[in-house]
C-alpha cells in the first residue's frame, strides 16, 4: 500500500472520527463555560434596522480592511479566501469528483466544477477523445464558458499560493519588528496550507516527473496533508471558518446592536 492508497482507502474514516470528536470538544467547551447572569433590559429598535445591522456586522470588517489595509484585502481576503480557498477546495473539478465519490449528494455541484487549467476542458473537446467514463463528462463542457480564463485551477492555485506566501512574509516582517504577533498555530496553518497548494499544483502538472510512482506519491502527499488539515481543523485557527466567524459576528451583533441598540 502506497501513500495514495493510504490517503484514499485507510485515512478517511479516521480523519472524520478525529474531526467529529474535535467538533464535539470545541462546542462542548462553550456549554461547559457558559454562565447564567441576569441581563439588563434591551433597548428597543425597529426590526428593519436590526436586520440591516446584522448584515453590516459581517460587511463592516471588509469595508474597514479595504479602507485601511489594501494589502490584506487583496492578499489575504481576495487571493487567499475568495479566489483561493473557497472555489479551489469546493469547486475544483478534481475535488468535485472526489467529494462526489465520498458524498454522492455532492455531485449536484458538478455543473459548477472549475477545470484544472484554461485549456483542459477545451482540449478534451477539441481532441475528440471521448472520456473513459460518464463521470468525467460533466467536467468537459464547463458552465463557466469563457470565464475559465479566470476560473481555472492553475490561476486560482497560483493566486492562493501568493496569498499564503504574502501572509507568511507578513508574519516574518512582524517578527523582525519584534511584534511577536505570530503564534505556533499560525505557522502550522500557513505552512500546511502552502504545502497542500503546492503539492496539489504539482500533482495536477505531474511534477517533478510524469513517472507513475512519483505521481502517486505527490498526489498521496497532497491528499494526506489535506486530510491532516481536516482532522486538526477543530483544534487550529481553521476553526474560524466553521464556527468562530459565525458565532463571533452574531454575538457582537446581539451584544452591541440587539441588546444595546447601537445602530
Amino acid at each position, binding site marked *: 500500500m502506497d501513500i495514495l492508497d493510504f490517503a484514499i482507502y485507510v485515512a478517511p474514516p479516521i480523519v472524520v472520527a478525529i474531526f467529529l470528536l474535535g467538533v464535539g470538544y470545541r462546542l462542548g467547551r*462553550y456549554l461547559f463555560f*457558559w454562565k447564567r*447572569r441576569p441581563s439588563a*433590559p434591551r*433597548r428597543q429598535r425597529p426590526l428593519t434596522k436590526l436586520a440591516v445591522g446584522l448584515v453590516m456586522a459581517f460587511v463592516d470588517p471588509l469595508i474597514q480592511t479595504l479602507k485601511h*489595509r489594501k494589502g490584506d484585502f487583496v492578499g489575504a481576503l481576495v487571493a487567499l479566501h475568495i479566489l483561493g480557498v473557497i472555489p479551489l477546495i469546493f469547486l475544483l473539478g478534481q475535488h468535485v469528483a472526489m467529494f462526489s465519490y465520498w458524498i454522492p449528494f455532492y455531485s449536484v455541484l458538478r455543473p459548477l466544477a472549475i477545470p484544472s487549467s484554461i485549456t483542459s476542458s477545451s482540449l478534451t473537446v477539441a481532441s475528440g477523445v471521448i472520456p473513459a467514463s460518464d463521470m468525467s463528462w460533466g467536467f468537459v463542457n464547463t458552465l463557466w464558458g469563457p470565464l475559465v480564463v479566470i476560473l481555472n485551477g492553475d490561476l486560482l492555485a497560483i493566486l492562493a499560493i501568493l496569498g499564503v506566501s504574502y501572509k507568511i512574509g507578513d508574519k516574518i516582517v512582524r517578527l523582525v519588528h519584534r511584534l511577536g504577533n505570530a503564534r*505556533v498555530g499560525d505557522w502550522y496553518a500557513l505552512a500546511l496550507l502552502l504545502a497542500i497548494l503546492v503539492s496539489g499544483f504539482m500533482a495536477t502538472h505531474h511534477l517533478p516527473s510524469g513517472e507513475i510512482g512519483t505521481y502517486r506519491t505527490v498526489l498521496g502527499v497532497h491528499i494526506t496533508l489535506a486530510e491532516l488539515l481536516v482532522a486538526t481543523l477543530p483544534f487550529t485557527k481553521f476553526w474560524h471558518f466553521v464556527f468562530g466567524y459565525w458565532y463571533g459576528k452574531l454575538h457582537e451583533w446581539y451584544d452591541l446592536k440587539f441588546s444595546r441598540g447601537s445602530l
Partner: protein
Amino acid sequence: MSWEEFNAEKVRSAEAYALRHLDSVMLHFFEDCVNCGLCEINCPYTAAGEEYGPVEKAEPLRKIYRRHAQIVPKLFPWLFGAGAPKSKEELDKWVEKAYRCTNCGLCYTTCPFGIHSGEMIKVLRGYLAKSGRIPTLLKLMVDAEASNTLLENAGLRGIWEDAVSKLKEEGVEFNKKNAKYLYITSLAEVMMTPGSVFGAVKLFKKLNLDWTMPDKPLSMRAPIGSLAGDDEATAIVARRIYDYIREINPEYVVLSDGGYPYTFFRFDLPRIIGEKPTFKVVHVVELVEEALKQGKLKFKKAAGKVTWHSPCKMGRFGGLLEEPVRVLSEASSDFVKLKSHGSFGKCCGGGSSIACIVPPTQQMMEKVMGTSIPISGTEKAFLDKLYKDMLVAGKAKVDEIRESGASVVVTSCVGCMHTLSMTTQAYGVNVKLKMLSEFLSENLE
C-alpha cells in the same frame, strides 16, 4: 507591593482571578482569534506603536489562559508562549500594554470575528493589580470609594459640600423617597465638569420633573474599581449604589455622565448585583429628546459651528449614537457631524482611567487633595510615557475636530472632556468644550 518588586508567587496566584472571567464569550475571545492583526487599524493606541495593537495587548491574558484551559499548551508551555511573566521587566511590559487601552470597543467592531480585545485587557488589568501593578492614584481612588471614605479628604469634601450648598439654593430636594426620577452624579462629575450637573438640574426644573438626588457621592464616578479590574471593590460599590436606589425607589435613574457610568447603570449593574432592576435607566439626552417630541421643550439655536464627540460608552456601547445628534441639531443653527461619527466613531484616547492617572491629572489631584502621591521610579517612567502616548492616541480625534471647523465640541463624558481638554490644547486646536446638559441648559428658551 512596590513597582520595583517582582513577586513570582503573587504573579502566579493572580491567575485564579483571570480564570474566574473565563466564560463562553471570553472563551471565544481567547480561542477564536486568528491573529490577523486587523483590529490594529482602528485602535487609537496603534498610532503610539504597533506593539499596542489590540491582539498584542490581549496576548498576555491568552498566555495565562493557555496554560490552564488548553491541553497541548499545558503540556508544552514553551512552545505556545503559555504562562505567567518571569521577571520584573516582563511584568512591567504587560502593564504598559494593559494601560494602552481605553476599552473603546473599536477592535470589537473591526475584528472579522467580533473579538473584543478591550474586554480581555480589562481582565488583564485585574490580574496585574493582583500581581502588584496598579497605578497608585487609581488604587487610592478605588480604595477610598470602596471604603466609602472619599469625603474624609478635606479637599474633596470641600468640592462636594460647595456643590451641595449651591444645589440647595436651587431648591434641590435631596434623598426624596419615591421620587419619579433619581438623578445620580459622581464626585468626579462635580469636580471636573460641574456645568454638567447644574445643567442637568436646570433641565429637570424646566421639565417640571418629580426628582431627587443623593446628598453624598455614591462613587468616585461609577465603581472606579471596574477600570482597574478590581471585582471585589466594584461589587461593594455596586451593592451600595443599588441599595440606595432601592431605598429611594424611583421609576427612573437619570445620568448626565455618558461615560462608563452610563453603561454601568444601564447595562452592567444587573449582572454585577445578580438581580433584574425595578427601575429604568435613562440618559438626560433621552429625556430631552422625548420632551422635544412632545413639544415640552424648546431651544434657541446656538450660533457657531457645533459638533458632537460621541463617548464610546454612550454611543457604541450604550446605543445612544443618533439621539445626541437629533437633540443638538435642534439646539444649534450649524451642527456638523464628525467624520467618523457612528459605530466606528474615534475614541478620545483617554478612557478607562488613562486620562485620570496621567501626570497632569495627578498634579491636579495632589493640589485638590492637599497630599503628595508617592510614586516609584518605574511607575513615574510608566506614567510619563503613558501621557506622551495618550496625546498620540488622541490626535486622530483632534484632527477630526479641526477638520470639522467647529468652534464648540459637545460631549457627555467626564473622561472625554478631560482628555479633549489636554489633547486639543496639546495640538493647538482652539475649541470650547461643553458637556451636553450644560450646552442644552444654556440654550433653553
